[in-house]
């Protein structure tokens, strides 16, 4: 209370840049509010989870170092480490020895629908070409593909 001056509030409000939004290219900042009733480690975990789910952080993106976060927000380094370890345990981030923490590359899940659609396009183009050679109507082919997908879901 005695020393929370405007200068300090600005420091605290500043946040740390940790990534860029893919959609609107806005820079993303970490925020920590030590005086919140939510424990600091949980604020960090929740934030990284949300940023990953929202596509703001992608596989391979690096998280700011424990020291950087601790010094910036004046919080205990072990608290930051604890948050990072929890994120690591739930496979959201991976620790690269001597380098730091990175958003985990658990492949397809982390990729966007658009990216994954591009991966299946070659097989579908091949099927479409064969359907045409066989003179099959589009409706019949789509019906068959739909049935195959549904059978697949059932497995």
């Amino acid at each position, binding site marked *: 209370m005695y020393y929370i001056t405007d200068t300090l509030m600005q420091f605290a409000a500043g946040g740390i840049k940790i990534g860029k939004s893919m959609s609107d290219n806005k820079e993303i900042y970490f925020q920590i509010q030590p005086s919140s*009733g939510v424990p600091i480690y949980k604020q960090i975990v929740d934030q990284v989870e949300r940023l990953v789910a929202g596509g703001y952080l992608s596989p391979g993106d690096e998280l700011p170092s424990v020291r950087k976060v601790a010094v910036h927000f004046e919080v205990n380094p072990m608290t930051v480490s604890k948050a990072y370890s929890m994120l690591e345990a739930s496979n959201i981030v991976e620790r690269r020895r001597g380098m730091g923490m990175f958003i985990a590359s658990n492949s397809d899940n982390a990729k966007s629908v658009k990216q994954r659609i591009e991966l299946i396009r070659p097989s579908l183009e091949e099927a479409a070409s064969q359907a045409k050679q066989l003179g099959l109507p589009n409706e019949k082919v789509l019906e068959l593909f739909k049935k195959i997908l549904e059978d697949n879901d059932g497995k």
Partner: protein
Amino acid sequence: MENSDVVIRLEKVSKSYGDKQVLKNIDLTIKKGTIMGLVGKNGAGKTTMIKSLLGLLKLDSGKASLFGEDSWDLPGEVKQKLGYVPQTVNGFDGWMTVDALLEYTSVFYDKWNKNKVDKLLKDWNIDPKARFRSLSEGEKQKVAIIMAMGHEPELYIFDEPVASLDPVARRSFIKELIDLNIDSGTTMLFSTHITSDLERIAADVALLKDNEIKYVGELSALKEKYDQNMNLEDIFIELNK
């Protein structure tokens, strides 16, 4: 057998001044690398507990130890590992210049990081040629902190460390502590009643109430026990009821 990870240990410590009991059966263990905040209202026993740890007070009963050595009879090598900043910084010879005071302090230690000391003096705008008694309260406290940092201790004990520091010095002080904690696993115990500091830097907390330890453990675990809308100050008021 003494666990070598344990830096501070109090076992069933009791202390009275006359017929007024100040510490009642205090048990506390602090491991290497911990940053623990010691909180409690005025008169709860914080300073007495710190003085017991440092061997500045004789206990009525129980045992206090630092690095496994009895606090009342600390060997020189333990004192070399200890940095203590008292609540009030009087008792130094006021006629000495800051330079001379630091020089005088340094001879008591096997090692002295002059670069760090000079850098802190510069960062905190202390004129090394100024006489100690001419400094403001805040500047005196800065000098006391620098005196405790020169020999790069493994354990810091602060009694209300930042009460009269300005925001710029306070921030660089905290940055210094975080660097030390990450780089060297330095252990820190500090007493405060300003919970906003505690919420940031301490991961563990011990709460003294009515001369007993009412809570000791992780700060996050304490927060999780209470409603999310309650900040630490609210929780302490609740615990002090």
